[in-house]
């Protein structure tokens, strides 16, 4: 798995939307890379920009939205410069996406078979018979029982888990190296979620697919990801190896997220919660965007926005605490509490 071949690199991406209230920047200076066969977890709460990031990569940002800056490299190609037509050739073939609600992303009027065939016909030169054979093979590969029958079924005849399997079959049918999964299991029941996560792991193991897994669920990330990016209010606030992030989160927001998640193996009277709410994009706080909710915010945090600071290769954080070197967060919290805030 030590295959360090880069599949995707996003550099200083900025995506903005023109609204009545002026320009709203949903994604502000987001950078990361994804290697072959790697699962990158992107975590954050609603409105943090995680979905807009993935839409930007896929070339799905429509007016009044636009990519205002930055670069997106898919292997050797820079995507932000491409025309719609050129992007079309890549969508579904070199990069594919699955969404939260498979019922809204599948066409209810077409059979499952037609929808898989569509992608194969568009991107590959195959005879009709070959298309059908391959479609059924794809359905079988994603663990759909009786694929010959499901081929002729309509989406409404399938359960939520089966529909998501169909979406995955469509996504991988042309051998895409990059799979963007945007909250792929959020709408599913836990037992079905476990099945879909297992399937995605198998894809990675067998086909060396790179997966960008977008989720609000820290458990799903702990289960799946190799590396993690935490987003808050349109920015990446922390990046690191999954073990490292769970063992010792660097950003107070990451720590807050982990502490506010109820854990099965623990009995706690009270959950530690993050006070306040996520800021509105059109009305960002000054300085560090997290400072109004941060337990260790100082004057500097209110006045000046921190930049991403590289602590170690692969570990980055956007927080003033770590500007002069890494700080142990728990110790810092205790110290501040003892000093009376």
């Amino acid at each position: 798995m030590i295959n360090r071949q880069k599949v995707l690199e996003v550099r200083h991406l900025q995506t903005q939307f023109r609204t009545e209230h002026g320009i709203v920047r949903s994604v502000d200076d987001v950078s990361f890379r994804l290697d072959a066969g790697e699962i990158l977890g992107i975590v954050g709460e609603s409105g943090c920009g995680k979905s807009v990031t993935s839409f930007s990569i896929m070339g799905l940002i429509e007016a009044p939205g636009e990519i205002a800056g930055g670069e997106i490299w898919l292997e050797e190609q820079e995507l932000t410069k491409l025309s719609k037509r050129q992007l079309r050739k890549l969508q579904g073939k070199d990069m594919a996406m699955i969404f939260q609600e498979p019922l809204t992303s599948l066409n209810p009027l077409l059979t499952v078979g037609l929808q898989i065939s569509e992608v194969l016909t568009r991107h590959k030169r195959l005879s009709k018979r070959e298309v059908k054979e391959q479609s059924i093979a794809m359905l079988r590969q994603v663990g759909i029982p009786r694929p010959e029958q499901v081929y002729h079924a309509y989406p409404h005849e399938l359960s939520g888990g089966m529909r998501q399997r169909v979406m995955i079959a469509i996504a991988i049918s042309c051998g895409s190296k990059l799979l963007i999964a945007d909250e792929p299991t959020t709408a599913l029941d836990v037992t079905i979620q476990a099945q879909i996560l297992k399937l995605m792991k198998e894809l990675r193991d067998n086909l060396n697919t790179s997966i960008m897994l977008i989720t609000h669920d820290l458990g799903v990330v702990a289960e799946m990801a190799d590396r993690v990016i935490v987003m808050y209010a349109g920015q990446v606030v922390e990046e690191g190896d999954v073990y490292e992030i769970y063992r010792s989160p660097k950003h107070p927001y990451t720590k807050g997220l982990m502490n506010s998640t109820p854990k099965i193996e623990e009995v706690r009277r009270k959950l530690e919660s993050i006070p306040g709410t996520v800021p509105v994009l059109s009305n960002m706080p000054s300085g560090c965007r997290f400072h109004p909710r941060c337990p260790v915010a100082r004057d500097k945090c209110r006045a000046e926005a921190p930049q991403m600071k590289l602590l170690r290769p692969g570990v980055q954080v956007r927080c003033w605490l770590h500007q002069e070197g890494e700080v142990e967060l728990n110790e810092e919290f205790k110290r501040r509490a003892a000093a009376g805030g």
Partner: protein
Amino acid sequence: MRSLKEEPLLEVRGLTKHFDVGKGWFNRKPAQLKAVDGISFKVHRGETFGIVGESGCGKSTTGSLILRLMQATAGEVLFEGEDLLKLNNHQMRERRKDIQMIFQDPYASLNPRMKVRDLIAEPLLTHHMLEGAQIDARVAELMDMVGLSPAYAKRYPHEFSGGQRQRIGIARALALKPKLIICDEAVSALDVSIQAQILNLLSSLQKELKLTYIFIGHGLPAVKHISDRIAVMYMGKIVEIAAKEQLFHQAMHPYTEGLLASIPISDPTQRSDRQEFILEGDLPSPVNPPPGCTFHTRCPYATDLCKSEAPTLQTGEYGGHLAACHYPRQKDLKVAGSY
């Protein structure tokens, strides 16, 4: 452990809700969907009784049946010894003061054209509890109780975030000083950091006001966090009831076991020692449930007996650990899961 003689606040006996689905052809009877199929449980004063299960298991219908938002097909709902299902509408209306509900989606459950003050005052007015200035005082008190500044009383719901709206929903539910609150997926639509705020609020209100909760949810970690005892539902039936520690560490029903194993881990270092117990397949059709134990189609331990005969949940004493399974397991589970 509580004394066994203590009367439960709520006792549900054989509660059943069948829906007719589709039209009957000629003289044939329409197909029946057994949303809730003869469930029984007791809820004691001051406790939180959790109900978990996947979509379509009947957990939300159970909540609606208790409050009579839906007419039950059969069964009894004894609240302080009185069967709610036998009350006439007027009597039931009186009783609703004691039983309130908090809903999943605070965006959908608040009238967007009403100000917060009016939303919270509405139950007080409907039940003629208070008048004039008393109402404003009570609204301010309630807003304070749920952590909203009374200065926001003149605002509309759209000016609030999801978490704050859920606080408004809670204030409404508390307005009539209920004894029992049914929380139907009350934190499921909220972001994790906000979910924690609301769970903490519910816990502190419970202590302060001596409330009893029925907490319905599909997110096991949240339900476990807040509940004292938990019932697991599958296909309209309760398959297991136990104190939460027992349920999470000595699950007896294979469905519970599968449910627990499918919760994502909370720490990546647990990946390797995680049990591989992923339930295969989907929920069967509720209109045409499998014969025998409804879980047998997905159960790795099913035998011929399970395919022909439905197991029953033995009614036992309070605090007992019950499972509707021919082969209850009660092995020690290594639960690695969390959210």
